[in-house]
């Protein structure tokens, strides 16, 4: 019972965060900080993989992109929570990552970017 309640509270928390997150603001952050390496266009891999449809995708599976062995081992299917964790400090989750990005420390901006990524379908 208790667990369900906590899960419920967490879910509620997550959904209010999601409500507060602003995909339009996230798009700006994305273009400034991720755009050098990532495209939001389907199938357009660059230095990083295309992030079109990344939420809901299994990590390291974008066809035609050479992921590091470390990244392929992740074994997560990207959702809001795992993406937030990854973007806060990519190297903490994938020590040998080829993603040259220190992490997005600002929680609001991070939520915005994740909200933007979720629109890419």
């Amino acid at each position, binding site marked *: 019972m208790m667990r369900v309640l906590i899960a419920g509270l967490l879910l509620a928390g997550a959904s209010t965060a999601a409500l507060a997150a602003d995909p339009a603001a996230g798009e700006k952050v994305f*273009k400034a900080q991720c755009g050098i*390496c990532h495209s939001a266009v389907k199938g357009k*891999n660059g230095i990083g993989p295309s992030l079109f449809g990344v939420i809901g995708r299994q990590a390291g599976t974008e066809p*035609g992109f*050479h992921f590091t062995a470390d990244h392929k081992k992740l074994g997560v299917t990207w959702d809001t929570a795992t993406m937030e964790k990854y973007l806060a400090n990519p190297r903490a989750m994938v020590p*040998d990552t*080829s993603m*040259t*990005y220190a992490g997005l420390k600002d929680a609001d901006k991070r939520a915005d970017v994740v909200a933007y990524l979720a629109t*890419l379908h």
Partner: protein
Amino acid sequence: MRSVRMRLLGALAVGLVSLLSLVKPAEAVPSFASQTGQPCSACHIGSFGPYLTPFGRAFKLSGYTLGGGDGLASEIPLSGMVITSFTHTASAQPSPPAQGFYDNNNPALDQISLFLAGRVNDYVGGFVQGTYDGVGRAFLWDNTDVRVSTPINLPSDTNLRLGVSFNNGPTVQDPYNTTYAWGYPFASSALAPTPTAGPIIGALIGNTLGMTVNAWYDNSLYVEIGAYGTQSPALAKMLGQYTYPGTSVGPMPYARVAYEWDWSGQAAEVGGLIFNARLQPGGIPGFGTDGYTDMAIDGTYQFIGDGTNTVSILGIFTHEIQHLNSSVAQGLAGTTNGYLNQFTATATYFYEKTYGINFSIQKTSGSSDAVLYAPAPLTGSNNGSPNSLGLITELDWVPFGKNDSWAQPFVNMKFGLQYAVYPQFNGGGSNYDGFGRSAGANNTLYAFAWLAF
């Protein structure tokens, strides 16, 4: 720490107005590796500068602003570099090539460089190189590129970045290794003769100051325009510059377009550039000017895959139109209207980012001029022709600079063995200079050890 860095880079930006110069390219900047937290191999083919990978180009085009490294080292924008070498030509030169050297078989400390290289903030970054030239025995301001870069939020999902570069020579700011400032050979002997004629744009690297603006659209299309002016002769001299083709009259416009494709582990580029210069040769007024228009098309192909086997090919063809009014009036050239063509192509293969082999062809041809290319021992031409053909083979060994390398990214070394063969030199094969020297006498073996930290 940040404020120290800000001050250093602030000083750099101010100093920029007053500096600059270069003779040979020289590069590899470990402070960028600690700034980004990436090994040298992330940005450089063969784990060593200046040959850029797609990520290296993106790093440059985004103004050297990416962070990602941790700790103190990532905050210190200083790096150093040393090149030592041994040069052997097939026959001795008529006289020693520089003071304190022999006419053949010269060991040398080619150069010691210090780089101030790093990011100031999310929008500004750059590098300034100061070099002690161990052959000319002088200090000089070397390659410098300081950039401002900002993303633009388009209504579509497409990326666009606009940037400005302040630099000390046309193509020092270019992201491709086809062009003059960062082209192959990446290291070459300052003590061996090389063909005399080359496009003017290459001779203006280091002794000019320029500002260009650029747009980078969809991480593919790069468009840039700007202008250059030469440093005053006094300033160039003060900064250690010993090639000084002339003083520019009016701004010298520069335009560049390139398109890049990035696929899985592969990249390709096609591009072109145009540059125009009006110069008073030797800085001497009263005789009008020499006019040059350089037009080039270039292409790059890189197969990187997972990094085990990499193959890259660079090519550029330059056509130069010359109107040498001032040189003719001063008796330095015989004909006013001339042209020069130069074609260079280089193929590079690396195994495990460690063992490399390069083949390069460097061909120059153009209109003859018995005054401009007059006979002279070693450097002249017997038939007034600029035509030359050089073929270079180079073996490289780069033991460090990878993710798992010892003391990464602070200890970087490249050992190279380079052999240049000249079937044709300054217009001829045998007795090319009018003093009995054959082109093959200039075939050069250059062994170098290149250290960056």
